[in-house]
């Protein structure tokens, strides 16, 4: 088992994008591309981003959307060599990556979170498509259906967090 070059014919079913705030290191971003069975094809992670107190004050409420959407999200999506059919994130602020990508990006949360009008359920996960891009909703549903039913849509984020923790230890 190990690291190898991905064959060009392989298509990623799904991309999982998230960020982990890990004081005192900073903010790490992780982007995992998986196949239909949820197995990893590519993984990209950022070096930690540190934000000063002055920057926090100046960016105010826009800080997280800027960090997650533009700095981390857009950077990571640009690194992927495979084109997933859909990108899922578990952070609402990460949805601000949408202006920087043509891929449909949806929010995934556990089923116990209140759904929005356009939300739909997949197993224990609740998927919220972008309300301002209705054309993405059907594309999202179709893409997620290609994943094997047993793949838990919330679980890959735990893998990303575990990998980022591992990266901090080494």
């Amino acid at each position, binding site marked *: *088992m*190990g*690291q*190898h*070059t*991905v*064959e060009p014919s*392989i298509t990623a079913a799904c991309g999982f994008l998230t960020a982990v705030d890990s004081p005192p290191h900073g903010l790490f*971003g992780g982007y*995992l591309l998986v*196949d239909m*069975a*949820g*197995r*990893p*094809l*590519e*993984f*990209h*992670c*950022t*070096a*930690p*981003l540190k*934000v*000063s107190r*002055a*920057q926090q*004050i*100046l*960016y*105010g409420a826009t800080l997280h959307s*800027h*960090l997650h959407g533009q*700095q*981390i999200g857009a*950077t*990571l999506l640009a*690194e992927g*060599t495979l084109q997933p059919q859909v990108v899922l994130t578990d952070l609402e602020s990460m949805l601000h990556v949408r202006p920087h990508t043509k891929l449909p990006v949806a929010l995934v949360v556990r089923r116990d979170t209140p759904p929005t009008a356009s939300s739909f359920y997949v197993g224990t996960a609740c998927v919220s498509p972008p309300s301002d891009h209705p054309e993405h909703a059907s594309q999202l549903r179709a893409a997620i259906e290609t994943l*094997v039913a*047993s*793949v*838990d849509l919330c*679980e*890959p984020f735990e*893998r*990303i967090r*575990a*990998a980022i923790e*591992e*990266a901090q230890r*080494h």
Partner: protein
Amino acid sequence: MEDRLNQKSFGFTALGRMRSWHLAQCPLPVVHVLPSIAPRLFRPAHLRLPIDSATPHVVRVPLIDQRPAVQSYQFRHAPVPPAPWQTIVPPASHVRAGDFSLAADRASAADRASAALKPKRTRILPPRDVVKMGERFFFLLQPNLETILETSHLEFPRQPFPFQFDGMAFLMPRHGAVLADEMGLGKSMQAISSLRLLVRLGEVRRVLVICPKGLVSNWTREIADWAPELLVAVVEGDPQRRRWQWALEDVPVKVANYEVVVRDRELVAELGLSFDLVVIDEAQRIKNRSSHTSQAVRSLSRNRSWALTGTPVENSAEDLVGIFEFVAPGHLSDSMSPRAMGAAAADHVLRRTKDRVLKDLPPRLNRDERIELTAEQRETYRRAEEEGVLRLSKMGQGAAIQHVFELILRLKQICNFDTATGESAKLECLEAELDEIHASGRKSLVFSQWVETIGRLRGKLSRFGALEYHGGMSTAARDETIERFKHDPRHSVLLLSYGAGAVGLNLQFSQYVFLFDRWWNPAVEDQAINRAHRIGAVGAVTVTRFLSVDTIEERIDEVLRQKRDLSDTILSQAESAPSAGLTQSDLFALFQLVPPQRSAA
């Protein structure tokens, strides 16, 4: 300022009491923010602008506009499954790995209920010796084991226990591993399921399983059960046949016994065979590094080495070093303290005991049956011991270990059957017990050290349909015996030798085990007992150990009792590790004799 702003951007400034003519100097349009919305846009203004100063001091706060560095990793994708996967359909009774509603037929109802409520998810963690970040990520980023099994469409005849999933997650990423679970926890099933998954993922293509001769058919049965789609070839028969079997290329799993591996060592080298995975069962067979068996096994070209054993430390710490010479050569050495050895071995060894992982396994009830020899037996015994000890004393420094052994064996045989009259107090006791067990429709296992004793017992216990199982029988005859004992209610007693019957057999439908005489090592006795007391046992297993009062049997038992915990000592990294087996000093001490001094040469 103009350079930094585009048409969609806004600039904010807190003006305080600045006059409006200052704003007129600004080249950009100015919008006044009403006081009611200002607090939402600005944090409390603690800035003190030096408005009276001619040139105010400016603090520059940089924007967050530098993209972070990114590390990227790409992983190999599992290849398309080979043909056998697509053509062989597992039996309808098989259950899917993640389907907890079809839980184990052998698991308790409580287990099933708890599993259904909260399915366990087993992560595959990278071994410590994997240092490359990409490889560590490869393991960490895999789905949990249950999902991998389910998405691979792998089905099992029975739902594995959670600790068995842990065992698979331990084996799969390791190139060198010792699965040292206590007997009866399903080591072979865990190894088969792990190698099955590795074959499925395209990680291994050529697997060799090496086991004792008597267990070859057991392994083929287990593989057929737990990995029905895998083609298996048993390497056996005459040299020409074996050459052909070794050379088979389209068979992913080959099974060979230790003797065949030793005999065909040169042939395997000549054919240039290399294996992706070699699994050795009853790995204590290679504990002696200088033995032909150990050398032959270690000479195999291989990528992964897994050792299965319920007794990784049978006699001394060197046993584990011997096994590690196959698993991870050079990783352990004889000079290590038990604590250091335990620490060095920790990431390669997984050992679970039944009391830790199988809370619901029926209890094992041990009882020592102390038997008074019959008067004739006692007299024969007394004479034999006195004569023997006298002879040893006369030999003085010339007395060797084999002389002591001979005397012990002779005395132990008399404890079984009086050599003069054929009387046996043990047999009388055993018959009484078996009468009751037979009447209740239950089955019993009776172990002895000697084939001759087994033969005698069979004649005496014919009314219970007693069957024999020992190394003097052919493999086919032994297999047939097991089948008859399993399925024919007329046979309620199986007589086994420790050598052939103590390992690998699944006889969990038997609820009574009798140790007619005692083996030299408690680990072997445990193995024998665990033929019945293992996963699938449907009720309490009663173990009766016969001990003849005031005989060599009692003395041996006392010595072994004191040394019983060596394996635990090593595996728990304790400081000192006494020998669990009988040393030369122990044997001489049984007769209050002093062992001869070794010569300097």
